[in-house]
């Protein structure tokens, strides 16, 4: 079984909605579509208040190389372009749409010329970004400036609770594989590897029937699905520190991204909806649902039967790397793979105690860093020394803080170090 060195074994909690088929979330009266749903500069709105839009109509244009187009999730009226708090608690621009009674859809024409350039152009037009969480423009990823020989599809889904990629592979396997082949075509590579963890054997067996694609069974371990670890597990290539996957001739894309590419190329539908997992013991009926961008979290929670029990944490994304929400006023974006409500029995909210120097954090770090020193120096305000112990190489998987017996917020210290160093550069 392929794997990497380090990592942790959190209880995967997938059973909560592993077998729930993907459901369509019904249309709600109001949508708030964020202009910044990706890494890079926010899109520029191309509609004004009072304008009528159709489902799939371009409402905000990419404003730079690393940006993405944004489309109306429903037909309706633009109420306003307003400021709202995003998941980080920062004010950002949102387009407020009021759903109209009559629905109409616009799509791109089906792409008949499947050349490399045309596929990349369509991916860019359709506003596709990496749906695994980072939200990096896929079109940019598909035009690497270094030779690439392998496409890895990240189907590890190592975050506990999340099932959306698994369900997508099970229910829409043909479409997903078609998307994978389109990505490989755009990259002009022969070798395609799908990396999948061994807790999704049903999907694994299903995928084995497709020819010309190598299915790599990976050991169930967190963070198996991180970019650098999945590249190492599948190809034994090591991405250099500070480097990109293309430095070792690899491009990694997520399952949902591949599906979105299929949708954009074959059906002509731009990216404005995705599958997400709504789970946690605090959700009455955990579900996998297909939601439109900009759906309020509150509506999603209500659709899943509301909150039950003593909910202590509401999360956007997985429990290891997701964002903690201060309330349910947020809305979904392209990169939301999960909405979790954790009860006190699942979320550990114990206060930190002194470090006992057990070295557990260094043992589990997939990047082989020494988080205890980073934490120590960051708290002492010596950020330069913290960087010497590798703070900048951290991708914040949270394995260190997960395993820490003293429950120290190690990731927070690392994030602080990164922020302070960024400030210093300015």
């Amino acid at each position: 079984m392929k794997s990497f060195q380090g990592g942790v074994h959190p209880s995967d909690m997938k059973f909560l909605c592993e077998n729930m088929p993907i459901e369509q979330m019904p249309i709600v009266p109001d949508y708030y579509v964020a202009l910044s749903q990706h890494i890079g500069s926010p899109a520029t709105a191309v509609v004004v208040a009072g304008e009528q839009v159709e489902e799939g109509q371009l409402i905000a244009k990419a404003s730079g190389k690393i940006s993405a187009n944004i489309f109306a999730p429903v037909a309706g009226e633009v109420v306003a372009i307003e400021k709202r708090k995003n998941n980080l608690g920062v004010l950002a621009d949102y387009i407020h749409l009021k759903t109209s009674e009559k629905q109409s859809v616009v799509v791109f024409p089906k792409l008949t010329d499947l050349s490399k350039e045309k596929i990349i152009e369509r991916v860019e037009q359709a506003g596709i970004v990496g749906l695994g969480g980072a939200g990096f423009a896929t079109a940019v990823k598909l035009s690497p400036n270094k030779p690439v020989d392998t496409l890895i599809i990240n189907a590890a889904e190592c975050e506990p609770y999340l099932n959306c990629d698994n369900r997508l592979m099970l229910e829409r396997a043909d479409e997903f594989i078609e998307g994978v082949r389109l990505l490989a075509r755009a990259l002009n590579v022969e070798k395609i590897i799908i990396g999948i963890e061994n807790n999704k054997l049903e999907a694994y067996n299903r995928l084995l029937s497709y020819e010309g694609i190598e299915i790599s069974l990976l050991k169930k371990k967190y963070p198996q699905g991180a970019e650098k670890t999945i590249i190492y597990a599948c190809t034994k290539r090591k991405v250099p520190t500070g480097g990109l996957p293309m430095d070792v001739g690899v491009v990694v894309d997520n399952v949902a991204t591949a599906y979105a590419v299929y949708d954009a190329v074959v059906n002509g539908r731009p990216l404005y909806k995705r599958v997400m997992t709504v789970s946690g013991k605090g959700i009455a009926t955990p579900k996998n649902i297909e939601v439109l961008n900009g759906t309020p979290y509150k509506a999603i929670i209500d659709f899943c039967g509301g909150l039950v029990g003593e909910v202590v944490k509401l999360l956007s994304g997985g429990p290891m790397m997701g964002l903690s929400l201060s309330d349910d006023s947020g809305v979904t974006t392209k990169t939301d793979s999960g909405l979790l409500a954790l009860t006190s029995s699942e979320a550990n909210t114990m206060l930190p105690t002194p470090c006992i120097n057990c070295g557990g954090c260094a043992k589990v770090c997939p990047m082989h860093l020494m988080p205890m020193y980073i934490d120590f120096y960051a708290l002492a305000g010596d950020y330069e020394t913290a960087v010497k112990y590798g703070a900048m190489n951290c991708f914040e998987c949270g394995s260190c803080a997960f395993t820490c017996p003293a429950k120290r917020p190690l990731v927070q210290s690392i994030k602080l170090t990164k922020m302070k160093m960024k400030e210093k550069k300015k």
Partner: protein
Amino acid sequence: MEQLVYSSSPHIKSGRTTKKIMIDVCIALVPACIMGCVFFGWNALLTLAIAVISAVVCEFVYRLCCKVSFKQIVQEFDFTSLVTGILVGMNMPANIDWYVPMLASFFAIAVVKMLFGGTGKNFVNPAIAGRIFVFISFSAMLKPAQALIGSISGDVVSTGATALQNIFKPGTVSGLTNLDLFLGTGVAGVLGETCKVALLLGGVYLVIRKVIDFKWPLIYIAVTGLFTVCLNGFNFEVFLPSILSGGLILGAIFMATDYVTSPNTLVGNIIYFTLLGLLTAGLRQLKHQEVVSYVILFGNLLVPLIDKYIVNKPFGEHKKVKEATK
């Protein structure tokens, strides 16, 4: 919604806590303590009790003096002082005067642990420091106690000396077989170190509970044994007596593996435990007496140095170095 906790990721954490680890260590020490009481009688239990109670009381009093509320001290009590107390007690001969273990615990907790910042900040293992403190101060009083239960091979009267001294003195008939040394029958010594089988049982428990890595005590014990063999002209007969005598197994499993005072890296740990083994064997040969606690103390002081120079190399780092040299 107002009860939501807003914090940085990760939002789930493992069940491993400092408290649970320390409780596991206490459980692992229980067999050796029981055997100590069996071999050395009620005095052993009394000595252990004095050491443990004074260690815990000392921590509480120290923190009360630091104006921490009693409720908070109880809440934050992480069992580390309990472990220290047990280890101090195990390092005392059973027939010692009551104030000696008390002073050892006081030195371990107040001076070595609390003055340097409490849990996780002690610069050497507190129990070792406490033991050495009283062994230097009261050396005349600290004669190893004689076990109440005699050698199972039966042909030995009282030697009074620890088994260790006999290995290096050819001609001295100790009469103790390796099995005696392993079980602790007829062996003189401090109350917690004589029954090796109980200590190993505790060690296996700690390894199963993933509190310690089996590699480290194994390296320490094996290096000590093998180096003793080398120093005695490749006489393999001294291998088992050398590892089964004195405080080596107690030190290797429970004291040298202390998280705070052992290195943080794989390579660092290999160096540290090998060094401990070499020093133990070498100094025993020179001094003809038990040196494990002094060796561990010395090793503890080297740990910051090891940790300064031996640091993990980040994943993918070597490629960057290569590129830079191009």
